[in-house]
């Protein structure tokens, strides 16, 4: 009996929509746009977050990262507010810093990194990529594997050989087959490099499009200032992380002021970045929710009109035994169906947009976003439907029956 009753409600609501197709469609349009914008904004936020996480995960674990400026200054109370300067200003690390850091015995790897975006040329193609100057340990720290050829060694570094390892994407772009790359010569700016290896694709934009070279080779040319942007210290023993951090700080403080550099762990950076993105995302979603609100008000408006139109019907239903609760359920079913319909439509369109856009931009949808979209649209249906439905339920039966 209960199920039959529920089905009766849904069927009656759907028949009502059929009679007012345009009106029902326009009403759910508001919710559709609201859900569409909220879901898209969530997808964008999630996509960026995932992108950043990938960037960090592509670095091995147990990593201490040193870079100029000041980000993780929670002990100074600055927190994420100081994130900005971390990317500009502060210390310029040079080879001397790198060599002093190699004296930390607890660090199994010490890897300096210089990076800039450049145009990379083969004989026939020109591609945009990332030029990197580093040492032979970088391959270990970045977890790179050879697809073709080999990686450069310590002797390449000291001999300043003009060799390069290409990321798989870049090799694919410059040559018909990435296998063809080994042995060829590429040009970055005015400098030529012989390709000795191709590194397997990892899903990291910079590495997959990278030209990885011994850092000394580009000193004075591509890296005219002989500086490094980042220095990584890796260890196989998680427990030494704290010691490495402390010792690195001591070493750097001999040359630089506190605040000119940051010594941090990968996980700390990740949580700081996540924090920022959560806030930005929350703000965006809040803005998107305004359209949901407007959509909800649209539903409320139409439901009030529907209640007035059906006053007589309410009277009839009450006379044959409908309780106030029955009437409330009837109108609530309609408003919830309207908003779920709009919400699903918005979700479908958002998913299509995500599918198209993800080729160019990091966006992604997850079950949570889908769940939120459906929960929010039915919530709106209930919230904005309950006032008109209450009005219908509270109509005095006699007056309702006589209503013309």
């Amino acid at each position, binding site marked *: *009996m209960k199920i*039959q*009753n529920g089905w*009766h409600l849904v069927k009656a609501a759907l*028949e*009502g929509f059929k*009679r007012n197709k345009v009106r029902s469609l326009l009403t759910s349009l508001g919710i559709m746009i609201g859900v569409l914008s909220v879901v898209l904004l969530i997808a964008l936020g999630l996509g960026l977050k995932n992108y950043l996480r990938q960037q960090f995960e592509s670095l091995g674990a147990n990593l201490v990262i040193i870079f100029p400026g000041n980000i993780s200054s929670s002990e100074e109370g600055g927190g994420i507010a100081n994130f900005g300067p971390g990317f500009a200003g502060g210390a310029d690390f040079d080879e001397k810093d790198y060599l002093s850091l190699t004296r930390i015995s607890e660090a199994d790897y010490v890897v300096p990194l210089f990076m800039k975006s450049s145009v990379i040329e083969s004989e026939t193609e020109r591609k945009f990529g990332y030029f990197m100057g580093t040492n032979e340990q970088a391959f270990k720290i970045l977890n790179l594997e050879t697809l073709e050829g080999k990686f450069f060694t310590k002797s390449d570094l000291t001999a300043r050989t003009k060799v390069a390892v290409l990321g798989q994407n870049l090799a694919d772009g410059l040559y018909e087959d990435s296998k063809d790359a080994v042995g060829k010569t590429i040009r970055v700016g005015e400098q030529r490099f012989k390709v000795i290896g191709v590194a397997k694709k990892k899903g990291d934009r910079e590495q997959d499009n990278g030209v990885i070279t011994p850092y000394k080779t580009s000193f004075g040319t591509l890296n005219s200032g002989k500086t490094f942007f980042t220095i990584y210290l890796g260890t196989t023993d998680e427990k030494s992380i704290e010691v490495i951090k402390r010792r690195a700080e001591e070493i750097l403080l001999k040359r630089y002021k506190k605040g000119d550099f940051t010594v941090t762990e990968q996980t700390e950076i990740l949580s700081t970045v996540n924090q920022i993105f959560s806030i930005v995302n929350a703000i965006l979603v809040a803005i998107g929710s305004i359209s949901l609100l407007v959509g909800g008000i649209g539903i409320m408006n139409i439901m009030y009109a529907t209640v007035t139109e059906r006053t*007589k*019907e309410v*009277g*009839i*239903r*009450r*006379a*044959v*035994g*409908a*309780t*106030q*609760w*029955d009437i409330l359920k009837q109108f609530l079913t309609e408003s919830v169906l309207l908003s779920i319909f709009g919400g699903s439509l918005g979700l479908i369109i958002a998913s299509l947009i995500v599918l198209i856009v993800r080729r160019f931009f990091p966006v992604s949808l997850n079950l949570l976003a889908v769940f939120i979209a459906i929960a929010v649209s039915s919530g709106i249906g209930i919230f904005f439907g309950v006032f008109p439905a209450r009005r219908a339920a509270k109509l005095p*039966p*006699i007056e309702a*029956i006589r209503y013309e």
Partner: protein
Amino acid sequence: MIKLVNVCKSYFLGDEEVKAVCNINLEIKDKDYIGILGTSGSGKSTLMYLIGLLEQPTSGKVILEGKDVSKLSDTDLSKIRNKTVGFVFQQFNLINRFTVLENVLLPTKYSKRDLDFDPIKRADELLTHFGIFDRRNFFPNKISGGQQQRVAIARALIMKPKVILADEPTGNLDSKTGDEIIKLLSSLNKELGVTVIIVTHEKEIAKKTKRRIYIKDGKIVEKYL
């Protein structure tokens, strides 16, 4: 079966209290066939709605099968209406976006207990009995007034009620069709033993009932003038 004891019902028009009916004492027995006769505005419809539990009295008691129902909650009253009372209106009051069959089935949707009959089978039987089975999938605005009123009576009967309350059931019909409807209502009383109460302003119709109640200015009077 239904007893009204000193029942008054008043409305407020702004600050002014208007007594629609007052001091009504009335007993309706099982299988009764009653005509409530009164002019327009005499309070006869209000009286009918009070008997049908669609209105609650301002004062006095409505007793249904020995139980005072005048203070019951909306939900309880609705349940009793659904089970015990069938209404027939002057305007037929069918829902135009539902078919004849769906209209007849409407009260069954609000039954809070399992039905002791198959609703569609019973609806078909009633429609057949009233000679409108071939109209079961029509919409109300596509059938004649007489047919609509039969649908309304079928709807009133579907839950096997104890009492049928008809408010000017012939008011929107021509005299021939009106006679047929009254005959139909009489037969319900005679053959099925349903209590039938017809509210009307027409003496001719009231004459067909077993017992007449005259109402004037909200009070039961001895004689209809």
